[in-house]
């Protein structure tokens, strides 16, 4: 039973990360119908920002500020910078193509992804940068229930992930900006005719989605310890899958999809074999898509004739 709970904790933690990145995917798709393949690379940029913040404040073994303040700066800076980067990408790479055939922004998104990945290679080099989280957040801190271990970084990821997801849901459902986002997602032209500033709404969507990816990048750095220019690819792939399985465009769907993938990976690894993790996880997802083609919480698109 302890083994089951250990895998549950591992799966939920990873799932929370996937969910945060998937939310950005889903938000952007919701308002622009664009698969932003550069989204995983924004997560990578966030992870680098977290790493450099640690270095700026003395490095993991000689921090010059308290750890809670360090974490706060890491998360705020990553959210702000990556959010701003997302807005810039939208402004210069996607907005000029907004009325172009859908394949054009898709290809541009792939180009932006390569650009970010290789810009990071040129700027930061190829080597893995290591957070060394254990040097400033003890591995023994956290909760130990029998043989089940939940360390404080995992707890932080779970709590912060949950807070961000609930916060985003409230923002979308209860604020003026959220209403504008939903209106643009439902019908961009109609929203514009109603006086909604579409460009600003889309920019805000990109900022929020990218900021979440930035925060997720810092969480990943703290949890997995390592960052280099290629980590965004895998994260982006799983997040994209999570968004699609949950129902792309649906925020609760992205959260559910992320958790589902995290748990599936964890339990397949634990109870069957790591050799077959991706095979079985994606087989499960194919089954889900066959049963519910629009995703678990997605709505079937009305066909206009």
């Amino acid at each position, binding site marked *: 039973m302890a083994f089951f709970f250990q895998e549950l904790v591992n799966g939920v933690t990873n799932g929370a990360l996937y969910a945060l990145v998937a939310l950005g995917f889903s938000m952007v798709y919701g308002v622009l119908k664009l698969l932003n393949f550069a989204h995983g690379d924004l997560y990578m940029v966030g992870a680098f920002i977290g790493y450099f913040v640690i270095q700026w404040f003395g490095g993991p073994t000689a921090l010059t500020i308290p750890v809670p303040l360090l974490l706060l700066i890491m998360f705020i800076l990553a959210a702000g910078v990556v959010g701003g980067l997302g807005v810039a990408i939208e402004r210069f790479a996607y907005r000029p193509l907004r009325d172009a055939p859908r394949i054009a922004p898709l290809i541009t998104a792939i180009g932006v992804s390569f650009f970010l990945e*290789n810009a990071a290679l040129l700027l930061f080099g190829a080597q893995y940068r290591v957070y060394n*989280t254990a040097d400033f957040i003890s591995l023994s801190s956290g909760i130990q229930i029998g043989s089940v271990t939940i360390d404080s970084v995992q707890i932080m990821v779970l709590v912060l992930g949950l807070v961000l997801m609930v916060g985003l849901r409230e923002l979308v459902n209860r604020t003026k900006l959220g209403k504008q986002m939903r209106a643009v997602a439902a019908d961009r032209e109609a929203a514009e005719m109603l006086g909604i500033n579409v460009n600003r709404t889309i920019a805000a969507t990109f900022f929020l989605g990218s900021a979440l990816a930035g925060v997720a990048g810092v969480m*990943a750095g703290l949890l997995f310890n390592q960052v280099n220019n290629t980590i965004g690819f895998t994260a982006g792939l799983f997040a994209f899958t999570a968004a699609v399985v949950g129902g792309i465009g649906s925020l609760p769907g992205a959260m559910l999809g992320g958790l589902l993938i995290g748990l599936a990976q964890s339990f397949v690894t634990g109870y069957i074999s790591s050799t077959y993790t991706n095979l079985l996880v994606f087989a499960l997802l194919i089954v889900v898509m066959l049963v519910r083609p629009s995703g678990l919480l997605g709505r079937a698109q009305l066909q206009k004739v």
Partner: protein
Amino acid sequence: MRGHVILATAALGALAIAGCGSSGSSSSSSGGAGTGAATKSCVASIGMEGPLTGPVATLGQEQLHFAELALAMDNQANKTKISIVQGDTQLNPAQATTVTQQFTANTKIVAVVGPAGSQEVEAIGPLMARAGLAFISGSATNATLTAGKYPTFFRVVSKDSVQGPQDAHYIISNLHPKALMIVDDQEAYSTGLVSAMTPVFTAAGIKVDHESVSQKTTDFSSLVAKVTPATTVVVLPWQVASNAQQLGRNLAQQHKKAVIFGTDGLFSPGTFTINGSYVSSFGPDITAIPADAAIVAAAKSKYGSFGTFGPPVFAATHVVDEAIASVCKSGNTPSRSNVLAAIKTTNEPASILGQPISFGSSGDLTNGKFFLFKINSAGSYQLIPG
């Protein structure tokens, strides 16, 4: 608007391509004022294939740095004007094939250093043979590569059929596990070593849990949960040291006491520092070889810290440089055929690797060996004698 679209697309494409691959870019080192022996202007190009970008770019960049370092030193010593043409393979056989096609079509290239991975050698071996182009790898260790299929292939490191059983016997004799977990990283290098080790373990009556994870995996908590109290050793024939560091952290996080035994790619002081772990490497720690002090100093000042992937490529580049210089000394112009012939007769009594370099008829390094290190509590690598 349309103009903006075209401009933006073109700019992004150009930037992506510029950063994406360095295939075809070249760097040369000017000849110094050494006491070289080449009697007339000795000009040639050599190709350098390595994973310069991608998940193991950290290894490929180290290899490139040491190739450039060797070239600079040899050009100065031999008064040659040899330049390097870089080819980024990303440790991907398809990409390696594309790069090799470019190299074989470039008649200025008389020999190639690399590629890094055994799977890449398998892909490009026939192309190199057809072009009569010698290629020397500093890290491809799969035993079958020198079975006669690729007559122009050489390597300056030993092979898996030596390393796998040697490591397995060490684990059995010194760590005495009743059960162990062995995890491959789904690359030919890793699966080859697993295949070489597993029969030795099972023959010794050890229970083996074979697992497999992608090199892109960054979290091992689910895998580590499967490490039972009876599992006292986790064997990681991996190429990404930071992944092993994370697995070690996951072990500590879950209060598991198993010892990590890694290979080659895990030799990375500063990155893989789990106390009590072992690393078996095809390359020595050249910082502990007094004769290499000048090279170590030059490499550190120019490129910073390094592991064991760079020095063998230095040795491979040096072999090619010396072969070209010897062709020039004999009054000939370097060509693929005469450089290949010169490489075959290589006989260096000493090398950066702390051992002589000569090749057997199949291209294997004569008397190649592996080195075993243990990591202490300070994260330092201590050579285990014998």
